[in-house]
């Protein structure tokens, strides 16, 4: 990830924020607007960041994973289900139930990662097909169970969909969160903080540890890695499972951190946007995070523009149509992928099964 690309991303986010500040400054102070947009951006980017990190681990080890969407959706459902069962059926307090739910979400992601590894590493199934299988499986299984468990007559909750026991509480970073106005950025929920920490950890692991070097080597040139005694299959298995667990944590964001309820197809394509963010970030953790923030900023823009709908000047009237604004991140992705901002270079052995 080069500085030019970071500069470009910072530039885009600045533009997105400036539009709202320019329109809304008559009504609300720019500091409040920027703070609130940053808080929204960081929170909305959470599942994208975690999904993109999943992609980084998998693809750096040479396994293409387009099943991130399915992993997140399944994790969102099973995490939510676990939290509900622990809370209502086993009578645990809300907090342990929520933590149990998060653990279950991570486990679900990890298991689907294992499944993907079995398909793509051991059985050498086409990795795109393996990922598609996971996406379809997740939609089917969550939709079916959601219906069977909660909506059918005589189901355990008698046709009433329970909500999970609340959501994960907000955490205020001492001192920073006490700053008036700006402190709101440091008042977020745990998975959001965890995502940022994991970006840093992933960067360190990938580029400064033996594990990271081995991971990258099996993704770049598995034959060479094998000849120096690195177990290619093991490295690929382990990294795909780690990636799955990260996607699982991303899934937990939907049902345990954002809202205490599950909706079929709740992830709404965010797994694929995460994949775009990973490419946008050139397969690096910080790059992927920055790209995820662009998507977050675009959503913050979409929400905030409507607040000041009356103040939008007539020559900018097209901004009143919120899906025009919503297109921004997708258009950006297409521009980035064309290679204007430097070339995107995937790991050399990305997507290729390894034959001993």
């Amino acid at each position, binding site marked *: 990830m080069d500085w030019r690309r970071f500069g470009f991303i910072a530039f885009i986010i600045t533009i997105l924020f400036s539009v709202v500040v320019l329109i809304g400054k008559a*009504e*609300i102070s720019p500091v*409040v*607007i920027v*703070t*609130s*947009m940053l*808080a*929204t951006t960081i*929170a*909305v980017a959470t599942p994208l960041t975690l999904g993109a990190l999943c992609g980084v681990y998998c693809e750096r080890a040479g396994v293409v994973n387009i099943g991130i969407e399915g992993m997140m959706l399944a994790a969102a459902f099973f995490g939510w289900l676990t939290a509900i069962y622990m809370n209502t059926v086993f009578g645990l307090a809300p907090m342990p139930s929520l933590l149990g739910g998060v653990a279950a979400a991570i486990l679900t992601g990890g298991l689907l990662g294992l499944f993907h590894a079995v398909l793509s590493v051991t059985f050498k199934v086409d990795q795109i097909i393996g990922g598609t299988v996971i996406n379809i499986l997740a939609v089917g299984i969550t939709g079916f169970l959601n219906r069977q468990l909660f*909506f059918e007559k005589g189901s355990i909750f008698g*046709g*009433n*969909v329970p*909500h999970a026991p*609340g*959501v994960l509480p907000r955490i205020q970073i001492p001192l920073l969160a006490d700053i008036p106005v700006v402190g*709101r950025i440091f008042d977020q929920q745990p998975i959001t903080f965890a995502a940022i920490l994991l970006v840093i950890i992933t960067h360190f692991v990938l580029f400064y540890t033996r594990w990271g070097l081995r991971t990258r080597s099996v993704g770049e040139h598995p034959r060479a890695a094998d000849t120096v005694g690195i177990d290619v299959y093991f490295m690929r298995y382990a990294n795909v499972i780690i990636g799955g667990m990260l996607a699982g944590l991303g899934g937990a964001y*939907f049902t345990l951190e*954002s*809202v*205490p*309820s599950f*909706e079929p197809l*709740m992830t*709404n394509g965010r797994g694929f946007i995460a994949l775009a963010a990973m490419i946008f970030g050139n397969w690096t953790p910080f790059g992927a995070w920055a790209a995820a923030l662009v998507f977050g900023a675009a*959503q*913050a823009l979409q*929400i*905030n523009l*409507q*607040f000041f*709908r009356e103040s939008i000047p007539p020559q900018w009237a097209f901004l009143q*149509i*919120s*899906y025009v604004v*919503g297109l921004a991140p997708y258009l950006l992705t297409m521009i980035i992928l064309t290679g204007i901002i430097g070339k995107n270079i995937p790991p050399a052995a990305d997507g290729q099964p390894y034959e001993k």
Partner: protein
Amino acid sequence: MKRLYGVIAVLLVAALLMPACAPKAPDCTKADVFCVGMVTDVGKIDDKSFNQSTWEGVKLAEKELGAIVQYLETTDSKDYAKNISTFADAGYDVIVTVGFALGEATAAAAVQYPNIKFIGVDQFQAWPYDEDKTNDIANLAGLNFPEDQAGFLVGALAAQMTKSGKIGGVFGTDVVPPVWRFGEGYRAGAQYITPAIELFIVYHNDVGFDKTFTDPEWGATTANSMIDKGADVIFGGGGKTGNGAVIAAAQRSVYAIGVDTDQYYTLPEAQKMLLSSAMKLLTPGTLELIKLAKEGKFPSGNYLGKGGYAPYHDLDSQVPAEVKTKMEAINAGLLDGSLLTNVPPVKP
């Protein structure tokens, strides 16, 4: 191995025979059996909002009129017509369809099955609707509500209860007139109390129509963004999207206002901060129309139900007496027509 196949074969045959053993459904084609079928909008029967309140009205018909009742959940907007005709072909007497989005499919079915009475909840009958009713489809009634009045009531309440002078509203898509009327009624009510009040009103105009009512995460994010900017009352209107906003508001300890039904009972996690709800009195409205259908006095065209606001419940002690008095006066004014919301029926 061979025996295993045998066992599987037996089980398969048993599974095939299963439906035959199920209890026989009452025959709706008979004249003396009064059957009411309900088709939900995309969403669940227990959406804690729209489908659920209508279904409660249908179930009252089961209790009070001895009707045979059944519902079908729509999972995809492509299935509206199919679900309606499932009931129609089974000989149901009254078919209730829930939601604006089913309007076209309901009108088409009403023309196709002239002997069945159709109740379109929240479906404004837009064709020329004249005094002698010659242009109405005789067997179709749209059950509508003065959403603008319900929105006006909670808008006035929000404007009286805010301390920061900033209030917010998170809604489904404004392409749906009832949702738009809630939002604009809310605006009008708030401005009726405080003309210069700061209002954040956001409609979820995503590209996918279904999505705008089933996106609680977006609702929560939007409500949080409003609270960041100082809003201290949040009105959430529009299925699960609105529910997300109401829950988010309650979590951050600002006043929340629900929609459609008294959400004190449907969103327990928001109870402690739920100020009121802008209510469409769906249950009595649905029951009333089913009764009229059974008695052979079925009205066609638009049938206007009633709007209202829910009790303050847990926050009763926090609402000053003069606010309560004012709210009663506004409600009375809206009901007798002396107070107008000035919100047009559809977005201009």
